[in-house]
């Protein structure tokens, strides 16, 4: 899709040039050269070459803060994604983090490399090859190895999900053949690899006989919920986020949580909050866990800010500044623990925290917290 077609598709011509997007953008506050408003303006002035060649094209976090507030509903993240596809066609790409290791893993998976990544799940509890409920683990088995050095054990989330599902009498399907959901490839301007990965996953889940796919990762959930049907139509199974699932279990008394006496605050992930509109179920869980020791940061729900970087690309001093500010905001609530709900938020914020010596704060994933609080 060329730039003109993107302008038409997202009705970018409705732009009022009001500046709400740029004023809301966490990147623009740190990096004055980046401005969503100017991106739209340039697109409409047909300054395509300048726009696509601009390195700032990859600075956007696609966090959706601008879209949430845009008075003319211009879906800037999706608009940006289309521009990136155009730029990628010209051979341009973002600056990949971790030397592109994670993108390589994604390409391997798209090419169909055999994986062996369910041992941890068998150790954690009961899993099956076929069944009603499929647990889509996502990339955590890889994260767990890669980010060991900053003390983040992403797989504790996966183990916790299995433990909690088992406790509720559910034996989920967990598969070695599961591929990356394709989220990062899609947002990095590579829809071809995304489509390959997605097709593999859809086929795998259909053949497992599952009618419900449970996600603990917001990116996987949102990609399945929003982008898979966009590219593949009706999926034949339902995507459910784990929090919605367990909020119900807590409500029905199937899951009992004990009080840990700590004060918590909660960071909304962009994909879970603004994009999937899941704001309340994690809060309901935290309330049942901590009562009024759960404290909101000033910027919460729709106003929440990104964890600083996305798609394993363009992690910069700008990211660090956004992260440090967010951590200080968490600290200001008086909470001792910042609860995250996305493995990437946990990694990114933990990375920033590790270089902030005087910051007395613990970062914990909500799912892990739930499993530790089970009675």
């Amino acid at each position, binding site marked *: 899709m060329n730039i003109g077609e993107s302008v038409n598709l997202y009705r970018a011509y409705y732009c*009022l040039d*009001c500046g709400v997007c740029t*004023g809301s953008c966490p990147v623009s506050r740190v990096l*004055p050269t980046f401005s969503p408003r100017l991106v739209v303006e340039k697109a409409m002035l047909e300054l395509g070459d300048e726009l696509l060649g601009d390195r700032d094209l990859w600075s956007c976090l696609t966090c959706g803060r601008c879209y949430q*507030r845009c*008075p003319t509903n211009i879906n800037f993240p999706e608009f940006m994604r289309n521009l990136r596809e155009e730029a990628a066609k010209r051979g341009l790409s973002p600056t990949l983090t971790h030397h592109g290791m994670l993108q390589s893993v994604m390409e391997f998976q798209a090419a169909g490399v055999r994986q062996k990544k369910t041992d941890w799940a068998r150790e954690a509890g009961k899993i099956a090859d076929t069944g009603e409920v499929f647990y889509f683990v996502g990339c955590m088995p890889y994260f767990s190895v890669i980010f060991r050095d900053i003390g983040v054990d992403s797989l504790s989330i996966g183990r916790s999900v299995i433990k909690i599902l088992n406790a509720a009498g559910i034996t989920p399907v967990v598969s070695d053949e599961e591929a990356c959901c394709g989220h990062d490839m899609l947002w990095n301007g590579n829809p071809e690899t995304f489509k390959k990965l997605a097709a593999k996953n859809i086929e795998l889940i259909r053949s497992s006989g599952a009618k419900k796919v449970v996600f603990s990762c917001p990116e996987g959930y949102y990609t399945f919920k929003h982008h898979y049907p966009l590219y593949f139509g009706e999926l034949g199974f339902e995507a459910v986020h784990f929090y919605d699932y367990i909020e119900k279990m807590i409500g029905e008394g199937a899951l009992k949580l004990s009080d840990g006496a700590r004060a918590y605050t909660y960071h909304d992930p962009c994909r879970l909050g603004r994009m999937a509109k899941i704001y309340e179920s994690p809060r309901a869980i935290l309330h049942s866990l901590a009562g009024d020791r759960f404290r909101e940061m000033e910027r919460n729900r*729709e106003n929440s800010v990104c964890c600083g970087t996305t798609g394993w690309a363009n992690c910069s001093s700008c990211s660090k500044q956004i992260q440090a500010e967010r951590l200080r905001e968490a600290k200001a609530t008086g909470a001792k623990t910042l609860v995250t709900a996305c493995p990437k938020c946990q990694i990114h914020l933990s990375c920033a925290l590790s270089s902030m010596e005087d910051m007395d704060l613990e970062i914990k994933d909500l799912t892990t917290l739930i499993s530790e609080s089970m009675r």
Partner: protein
Amino acid sequence: MRKKARYVNEDLCTGCGSCAEKCPTPAVDTFNTGIGQRKAIYKYFAQGIPSVFTIDAPSCRQLGQGKKCGVCAKTCQAKAIDFEQKDRMVEIEAGAIVMATGYDVFDPSVIPEYGYGRIKNVVTALEFERLLSASGPTAGHLDRPSELTLEKEIEETGKEVRKLSARIKQLEEKQGKTSDEVISQVKAGASDEPLVEWAKQAESLAEMQAALAAMNRKMAAATTAKKLAFIQCVGSRDFRFNRYCSSYCCMHSVKEAMIANEHDREVHSSIFCMDLRAVGRGFEEYKLRGGQQANIEYIRGRVAEITEDEAKNPVVWFESTTERHVKSEVFDMVVLAAACVPSAGTARLAQLAGVELDTNGFVKTDPLMPLATTRPGIFVCGCAQGPMDIPESVAQASSAAACAAEAVIGAQITLKATA
């Protein structure tokens, strides 16, 4: 039509106001947008017509709370108070109807990024109007809502402190001991129940006194608002809420900023807008005069977000689109130019009257017949038809009355009112 009971005989009431003066029951002042209080017997606003008082039944001690009172009835020399009055259904046969049901102010609390309702010193233009009014709850001084709340807290805490210290003083006199002695006795291990309770109360008194002193210090350091931000297009020209322009807000923001500056020359106002729509004779000149003489700065940029700092000051985040720069600025108070929306009853009324509404929910009219609704004989004027300012509403009102007269003139009509 239901004519609601006002519990005051309209034919007898002279509007003197001695009832409200003597009424012992305070109630929330709705005309002053909930800032400040009025009495349970009240007149909605000073210039209201007819100039007749009304009892706010749910707030009234006698009508609402079932207690004995009747102070107003005793005070009223005209004997106008009638606690037995009931709502009446009135049937009117009319040859023409003019719908002049006005508008509601958009509720900005649904916009998460502006923090209205959460950040105390973010107010709507209508609330600001009351704060600025000489007959309003602050007599026209720009006291900030955060300080008004603090004032209330000080009053309440003060009351508690006086009550508790009187109780403790009584104990001290009776027992011939000081509270300090009791506290040290308890600390030393005395477990006598009344003593423990006494010590507990004495300690909480000390805590409350310290809190009160802190609040008083804060209050003493507070000044009236000097630095104001006006935010345009709140809930209008916004696809999420209302697509239309509310048309009058640009001018009322300039007006409010001008009056604030006339009241206190130190007041500086920033008006944030996409374009300041000063359309009308003399409006553009008025806007310019505001910039030249009333310390008003016009900033091109729609406000993205409002946060709050430790001193309860709102912090406004925006992109100055002329400078292409994202900024944050601390203000004493932020005024939201909230949109004009159809009044809550418009849809129901339109259904009853059999008239159509436009896509925005206002009463539909034809551009060439701006006062005629879709049903002959029914006319509309003012903000029931769409957002408009006072002069336009007044002009429409006269025209609509003329249209209605034209419809019935020469016809034999009877105006019957049955009780």
